[in-house]
């Protein structure tokens, strides 16, 4: 199994485990899930990218999409609080 496949598999495993943990803890806010997934994504990417710098560069568009998604959920929550 290649580095990228191992990366995707370990990330999938990490977010499934954290999802179950958050569900057991009774967390209901989607932005918390999103924040945890995003942190896991960035940490696992940083671990893998030490061996392959090009992977970090290639995944930059995905990082931007994930960050925009996070910004959207946070903005939505702020608007909800303000209203």
């Amino acid at each position, binding site marked *: 199994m290649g580095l990228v496949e191992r990366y*995707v598999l370990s990330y999938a495993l990490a977010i499934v485990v954290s999802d179950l943990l958050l569900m057991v803890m009774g967390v209901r806010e*989607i932005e918390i899930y999103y924040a945890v997934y995003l942190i896991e994504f960035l940490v696992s990417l940083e671990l893998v990218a030490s061996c392959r710098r090009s992977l970090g560069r290639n995944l930059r568009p995905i990082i931007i999409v994930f960050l925009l998604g996070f910004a959207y959920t946070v903005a939505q929550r702020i608007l909800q609080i303000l209203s």
Partner: protein
Amino acid sequence: MHHASVDVPSSMLGGRQRVLGVSLVAFGVLIAVASAVVGAASLSGLGLASFLIGLLLVYLDSRPSFAPELVEASLLSSLANVERIMGELGPRTKAIYLKTIDRLDVPMVFLPLEDNPAPPSGLNLSGEDRLLVIDSDDSHRTGLLLEAPGASLLALMEKELDLNFIDLGSEDFLNAIKSGMVESLEVAADVKGAFTQDGVSFRIRDGPLRNMSRSIARLAPNVASRLGCPICSVAICAAVKAIKRDLILEGATHQAGVHSVTLRFSGGSTDGTS
């Protein structure tokens, strides 16, 4: 003369990865919608996880990837030409991988035209840019000066690892070579190296490019055994850069998916061991 025959590329796994990615994205959206409808907020986390993994799979699949057969096909003709040059010009001498002085130097390999059992410890050819070096005063300096077959791979490996082997000591370079060849470039399944007083030896187990190694050993036997195939050569180039000494390639064998490379220090043994 043999023509380079290459296997037909095997079917790519990319299609299946894309289907899985799209399915996960769709599943994630469905779960998110269902959780909103039934008011089960905790389920939306699962939907989001599925969505993100699906997105990642679809994106990674959209990146260009190449079959090992394509790499093999693009390489064989060039190596066959080097094989012909060596066959016509090169006698049965041992190649010397020349030390690099500057960080940006391209690793070069020198193949003397005259048999020379005891080359000098420092063969200074740094100013030369000719393919055929002829020095009537010094037979040690007469031979073929070639860019090492693994020089470009080494440059790529250094870029991926974000390091320069010239900065590494003789203690660290073996681990860096293994990490670079196995994890970064994925050109080998395993690399074992040993650094002794007399030289360095490598045992490299083939990875996805095993057919390429087999083809090179068959179609360009002189290149494979006397210069080293590109996979052997990348390890040798990295060693030369890290050790900062000329290394004589005593032999490189390619058998049953394993490359065995033995290198000796030019001009005698070294003080440091590991």
